[in-house]
């Protein structure tokens, strides 16, 4: 196993860890706003790490740029979608969850 392969495995492992964190947040957090936080932020970084890992394994620079493009488009879309869902929830007068003390 070459050094490149080792780095690839580490990056994919770290990427999966963040996807797991995002999913756990989606399941465990109390309302639409807090869930949006977790899934948007964690998946952005999870995808970035997996794209970096893939970039180490592909043959050409054109493909590497393509992976980068996928990441940029996905993060733009997910941030925009998170905003739209949040705004829709606000307009529907969903009260953000607050810890009862």
């Amino acid at each position, binding site marked *: 196993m070459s050094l490149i392969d080792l780095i690839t495995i580490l990056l994919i492992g770290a990427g999966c*860890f*963040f996807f797991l*964190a*995002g999913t*756990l*947040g989606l399941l*465990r*957090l109390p*309302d639409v*706003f*807090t869930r*949006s*936080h*977790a899934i*948007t*932020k*964690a998946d*952005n*970084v*999870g995808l970035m790490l997996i794209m970096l890992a893939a970039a180490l394994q592909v043959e*050409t*620079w*054109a*493909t590497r*740029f*393509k992976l980068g*493009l996928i990441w940029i488009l996905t*993060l*733009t879309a997910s*941030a*925009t979608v*998170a*905003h739209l869902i*949040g*705004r829709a*929830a*606000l307009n529907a007068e969903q009260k*953000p*969850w*607050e*810890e009862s003390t």
Partner: protein
Amino acid sequence: MHDTEKAVSVGRRRLTWQQSLDVLLRGATFAALWWILTEGDNAAWVLGIPSVAAATLISLAFVPPTVWQVRPFGALRFGLYFLSKSLLSSVDVARRVFQPHIPIKPRLVRYPLRVREVKAQVIVANSASLMPGTLSVNLADDVLTIHALDVNAPIREELGILEERVAGIFGIRLEERTE
């Protein structure tokens, strides 16, 4: 709003050299996208050249030629700031959700923006959602509404720095807060 942008919005036919530069830049961007999508296949340019030309014309129909005032150094500075903060935001999420009792104290925060250009405001709003503890949920009348994951975190200070970095991309000034 800059004077040059006003001239464009009233629909002047003749292009200034800066607007011509914008058209060239769009063409170059679409050509680069084509190269990326076809993964550098030279034979694909038979379809690529007409597609790039069509994409450029369509984009001009939707967004008239404008003057981009992107500062390379400012854009780089924003990029590095955004990258480091978004990495931290995921670590922050992971740190919270793996605890038995998730430590959060969410509140809505109204943040009056000091940047007035819409494109800069949109970048601030979208970036904020990928940074630690902030999620943009509304943007209207120069006020950004943020859902903060932890109200005790320095939300306003962080947003202030983000605004300065975004303003740095375009070299625009921050206005005084009106409220």
